[in-house]
């Protein structure tokens, strides 16, 4: 019966994929409005409507997934909505379907978790939160479906606004309002860049549909201008250095499911936008674009990883780790542009597939980790790493599921993070075949930077997991940490399952990217996937099998476990660890978050702006304080802000308050315009 329904559903998808996707996306606004019926009832909004939203996410995932697997041709439609002369155009193709799949897959887990997470009395009323949350989801889906600049911008701005309200849901705290403002500011700067980019791309035809932009012929100069604007605008949304500053402020300020949504899905809309414009609308004109994206991506990767290593707030740590992962995705995109513009479609497809799969993976494991921090925060009321520890004993479920996310994020096999990072490194290995001598020499440095980033990411994840879940509790109150509820566990479990499935069976993800890479660069990686392994270019050169890795790892673990059980004493003995003759031991003696990050802080000191106060050796109550600041604030943003302030002060005299002065200025303007008229 149930299987019959699912089969019917999938059949309908095959016939009208776009119509059905739109119908599914339209369910979110309906749920959003339903949230307003009883806005203060947590039982109605959270326990009833959020799971409904999660079901819609699953439906979206199924729609997009079926579309990708079936290899349906792109479908376009003109909606009977919009302004009189500007109807909305929508289009579903492989690229949008891939990102809609990410939206559905991660959205389902996050919504289920949110159903258990939101409680009453936390800032905004739950009904309003639900309203913004579901409109946010719908607007992201529309961004990916839009086929004209007008609808794209409307959805893009709706997305920015709703997420702003979600970030500031605890608006009584001034820091959160400040973080929200910074986010809104950067979002608008980005949106202006994107708007200008569309303005350039219409190329004098004043047609704002994407199909018109696809056929517009831009001069090399204007194409590069459009690309630069797109990189800046979408980079600001994705958190690319140097326009990343909002990210480490806004992610920690938001409630955890919202951080997960922003980091997991919203950043991907920026990736989608950049791919759409660079590959689909501008047709990848110059390899130099690839070098720019590659350099920015690698720098963001290293930068994010280094900053993540020295954070002491767990959500800020994850936010910087998001910057690092976005850097990796951009690295893949940059390589892909480089290859595509040098007419090497297979390698371009490989790099692009790596970027796409990493986007998918990041949305899974980063959502999982952000949600886990949410559980920890609800259980302990702590967010500082210095006050956590040992939670694996009090919250075993969250700890186990977070471990999967941590390992995935660290890029260890057989989990999904490894797959995309491995593919990315494979793509780097083919760069010596590029026909540009200078780039050829520099790209190995890029590969080294990539390895450094990946290694640092693993370091960061060890810190994240070790300090929160392992060791001893650093505060007495942690012993009362309560466990997450079952809705939260289902949400975490869904995402963790995604991490494992993609890690073990990466063919699924690779096959899903095949359509998208085929559309954008004309080739797909591994046209005939085998069930057991993936071999991106040639099986003789390199192949990876998640199953073998998993089997080996499971065997080793099982053998070790059994050997210890059988050969050693065979019973559990609880004793103080590493009790090297000390009479007593407490939680203050274990490695702290600051201590863990200290080597990185020393090695990469040039990246930071540090302010330290060290205690003197004779101090009986020693206090150690360190403040780490992003250099970009001082180099880039503060001069900019003071420049704007100076400019504003310089023109402030215009507002003198004298009526005759105001009249005189409009009079002079009028005369000036008339003179202009006279001379032309």
């Amino acid at each position, binding site marked *: 019966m149930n299987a019959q329904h699912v089969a019917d559903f999938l059949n309908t998808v095959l016939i009208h994929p776009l119509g059905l996707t739109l119908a599914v996306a339209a369910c979110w606004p309906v749920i959003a409005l339903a949230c307003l019926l009883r806005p203060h009832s947590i039982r109605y909004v959270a326990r009833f409507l959020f799971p409904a939203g999660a079901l819609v996410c699953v439906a979206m995932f199924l729609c997009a997934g079926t579309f990708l697997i079936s290899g349906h041709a792109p479908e376009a439609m003109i909606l009977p909505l919009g302004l009189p002369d500007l109807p909305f155009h929508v289009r579903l193709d492989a690229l949008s379907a891939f990102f809609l799949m990410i939206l559905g897959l991660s959205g389902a887990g996050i919504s289920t978790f949110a159903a258990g997470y939101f409680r009453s009395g936390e800032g905004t009323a739950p009904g309003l939160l639900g309203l913004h949350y579901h409109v946010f989801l719908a607007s992201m889906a529309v961004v990916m479906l839009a086929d004209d600049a007008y609808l794209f911008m409307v959805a893009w701005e709706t997305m920015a606004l709703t997420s702003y309200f979600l970030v500031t849901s605890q608006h009584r705290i001034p820091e959160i309002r400040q973080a929200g403002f910074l986010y809104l500011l950067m979002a608008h700067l980005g949106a202006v860049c994107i708007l200008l980019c569309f303005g350039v791309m219409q190329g004098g035809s004043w047609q704002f549909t994407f199909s018109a932009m696809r056929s517009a012929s831009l001069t090399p100069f204007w194409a590069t201008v459009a690309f630069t604007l797109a990189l800046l605008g979408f980079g600001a949304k994705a958190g690319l250095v140097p326009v990343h500053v909002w990210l480490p402020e806004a992610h920690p300020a938001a409630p955890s499911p919202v951080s997960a949504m922003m980091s997991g899905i919203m950043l991907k809309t920026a990736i989608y936008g950049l791919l759409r414009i660079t590959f689909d609308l501008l047709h990848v004109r110059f390899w130099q674009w690839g070098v720019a994206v590659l350099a920015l991506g690698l720098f963001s990767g290293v930068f994010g990883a280094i900053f993540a290593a020295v954070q002491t707030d767990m959500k800020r740590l994850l936010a910087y780790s998001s910057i690092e992962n976005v850097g990796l995705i951009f690295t893949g995109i940059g390589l892909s542009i480089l290859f595509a513009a040098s007419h090497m479609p297979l390698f371009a497809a490989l790099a692009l597939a790596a970027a796409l799969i990493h986007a998918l993976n990041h949305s899974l494991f980063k959502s999982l980790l952000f949600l886990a921090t949410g559980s920890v925060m609800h259980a302990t009321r702590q967010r500082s790493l210095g006050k956590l520890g040992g939670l694996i004993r009090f919250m075993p479920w969250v700890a186990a599921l977070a471990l999967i996310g941590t390992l995935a994020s660290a890029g260890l096999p057989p989990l999904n993070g490894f797959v995309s990072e491995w593919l990315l490194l494979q793509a780097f290995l083919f760069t010596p075949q590029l026909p540009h001598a200078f780039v050829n020499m520099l790209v190995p440095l890029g590969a080294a930077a990539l390895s450094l980033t990946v290694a640092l990411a693993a370091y960061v994840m060890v810190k994240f997991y070790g300090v929160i879940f392992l060791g001893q509790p650093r505060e007495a109150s942690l012993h009362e940490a309560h466990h997450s509820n079952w809705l939260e566990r289902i949400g975490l479990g869904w995402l963790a399952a995604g991490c494992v499935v993609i890690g073990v069976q990466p063919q699924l993800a690779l096959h899903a990217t095949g359509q998208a890479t085929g559309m954008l660069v004309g080739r797909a990686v591994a046209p005939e996937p085998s069930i057991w392994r993936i071999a991106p270019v040639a099986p003789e050169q390199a192949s990876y099998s998640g199953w073998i890795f998993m089997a080996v790892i499971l065997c080793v673990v099982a053998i070790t476990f059994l050997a210890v059980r059988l050969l050693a004493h065979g019973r559990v003995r609880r004793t103080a660890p590493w009790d090297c003759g000390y009479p007593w031991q407490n939680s203050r003696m274990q490695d702290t978050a600051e201590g863990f990050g200290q080597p990185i802080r020393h090695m990469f000191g040039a990246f930071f702006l540090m302010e330290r106060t060290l205690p003197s050796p004779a101090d009986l109550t020693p206090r150690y304080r360190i403040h780490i600041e992003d250099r970009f604030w001082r180099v880039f943003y503060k001069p900019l802000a003071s420049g704007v302030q100076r400019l504003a002060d310089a023109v402030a005299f215009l*507002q*003198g*308050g*004298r*009526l*005759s002065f105001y*009249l*005189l200025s409009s*009079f002079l303007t*009028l*005369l000036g315009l*008339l003179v202009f*008229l*006279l001379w032309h």
Partner: protein
Amino acid sequence: MLSLHLSQLDVQLLKLLAAAMLLLSFAMLSARRTQQLITLFAWQGAVLFLSTVLVAHEAGLPELYFSAALTLILKVITLPLILHLLIRRLGAQWDNEQLVNIPVTMLAGLVLVIFAFGLAQPISLLATTVTRHIIGIALAVILLSFLMMITRRKAVTQVIGFLAMENGLFFAATSATYGMPMVIELGIALDLLVAVFILGIFFFQIREQFDSLDLHHLESLREE
């Protein structure tokens, strides 16, 4: 074609009225007392009325008679009456306005008139009406009224300047295109009436707040 119907005398008369209009504008620019200004404004309306009637008669456009009647009722009778009542109620009829410097203002006005004529030349070449030579004067009236608003400091004179500007616009419209469509003219007339009422209320509020109608008190309202 229409110009054939117009006698030479009528064209001369129209030019005379336009000259009177310009003269009245200069007179307003140099007038010191508020009451004097209102009287001048009423005269300006009367000249406007006469010229509109003349154009309507000679061009054979009956709807221009309505415009003329509207001008007579509103700008010659109603608005000056309201303004007179207002300043009497405010006790401002003998207000003596400190002007910036009359000779300088007049010189600036002269420059503006020359500028307006230069500006009107290409427009009058395009226009087909008999009254096209008057466009320059109409533009000059607009600019002079604007200049008056800039140089005055009392609230009531600002309003009169605003109304005189509208006179100039109306004059430009009749001379360039034989008037605007009736609907627009009615709308503008209603707007003017409402504007005067609202500004009247503002005068009382301003006087209540600052014990004076001098606008320099409003400078303290700006945001620091």
